[in-house]
């Protein structure tokens, strides 16, 4: 998967957990929590949905890697590709 595809995966999850938010102008390099109402429980939702939908585990120490859409792409793309290569 490309980083853009992974970012779209994250966006799809955010669309579900923050259904009242307009995500069309989300800036990829700005912290998600600074652009929308996203509390710590919502953040755990992202982690949970990555686990449920895609089998991706994000250890607590790495939560900071999910701060922006760009950092999500950077951090998660190797994880998605590792899953794909395991096949």
């Amino acid at each position, binding site marked *: 998967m490309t980083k853009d595809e992974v970012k779209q995966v994250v966006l799809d999850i955010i669309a579900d*957990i923050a*259904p*009242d938010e307009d995500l069309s102008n989300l800036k990829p390099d700005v912290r998600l929590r600074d652009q929308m*109402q996203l509390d710590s*429980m919502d953040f*755990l939702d992202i982690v*949970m949905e990555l686990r*449920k939908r895609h089998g991706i585990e994000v250890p607590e120490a790495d939560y900071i890697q999910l701060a922006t859409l760009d950092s999500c792409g950077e951090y998660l793309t190797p994880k998605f590709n590792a899953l794909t290569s395991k096949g």
Partner: protein
Amino acid sequence: MSLSRIVITGVGLTAPNGNSLAEFRGNLLAGVARISRTEIRYMGPLLAGVCNYDPLRYQKKKELRVGTRAGSIGIYCAREALADAGLNPDQLARDRTGIFVGITEHGNVETENEIYAISKFGYDTKFWSHYHNPRTVANNPAGEISLNLGSTGPAYTIGAACAAGNLGLIHATQMLRLGEVDLALCGGVSESIHTFGIYAGFKSQNALAHHEDPNRASRPFDKARNGIVISEGGALYTLERLETAMQRGAKIYGEIAGYCVNSDASDYVLPNPGRQAECVRTAVTRAGLQARDIHIINTHATATPMGDIQECEAIRSVFGEGCPDTSINNTKSFIGHAMGAAGALELAGNLPSFLDRIVHPTINVDDLDPLCSLPGLVLNRPKTVERVDTILNNSFGMLGINSTLIVKRFTS
């Protein structure tokens, strides 16, 4: 001790046959029940009273995703009650507003949902939702209302099985009289149709109603009654001390006249007519009334074979034959058993009788069980009476909790 007079100034509700008091009352007078058949997990299609209020009227989509059905019903009812009372939610004395919500149970729905969800992942608990605890704490429905309103006064639930709706009003009355709050949002809510466990429990107890026509299934006092129709719903009231209500020129539906809560201390599930009669009698006495002064008795009867007979026995022992002005009805025949909301909803359905002098009937009585025959039973058609000054509302629950609440016509 002189007690403050407590009055009802607003009503918000959702019932299977109405999302406002006007719609609900209209259907009770028109004989319109609204029970449907709905899919219950693991059990198939079963009868249920389902509410169709618009949850997005007062909640965001995210609140609905995170919260519970009971919380959502509570928010709808609370906002509707405030609007009905002419109170702006944004201008409440936030720390002086109390929220007291009766519940039969809470947390079954959410726990069952989570177990079902992790069953799709081999029961691996790492897929268990982090929302489980805030959804299942017993204060959840009241807490969700306080979050939605930004109200910072006491907000909690009162667990009292199916007596809980009355208990919400009774506790609010006490808190207003203690001066703990100046405004109370109170009553009861239920989300129980979303838990298979409640259905399966009643089924195992042979207490679940069945009928070809869903709207004919809930039939208290009828010989062919065969159990309970479970419903969701809610009714919350604004209660205020009389002087507060008068100062702001509030509309007043009625005044809390008296109440009693007691316990059978005799069985987990079987009612005890002796204790029920004591509860009713004590409430009447505390209201400064005599049995013949009660104009409407709204029964708890759930359409179980024994429960109805026992409540009738209790009523018979208090009211006997000497109460010619007492009418008796039952609201569950229309909406099923709304569990924690039952007492509060059933009172609401009768409150307009102070104005229109019409007693809504008990429907679905084709063949009255002689053991349930009481003078004054209003069967199948509404009855216009000379006057309605008092309404006595019975709500009883498992583990032997009994509650009677009496509301009287307001006179200054």
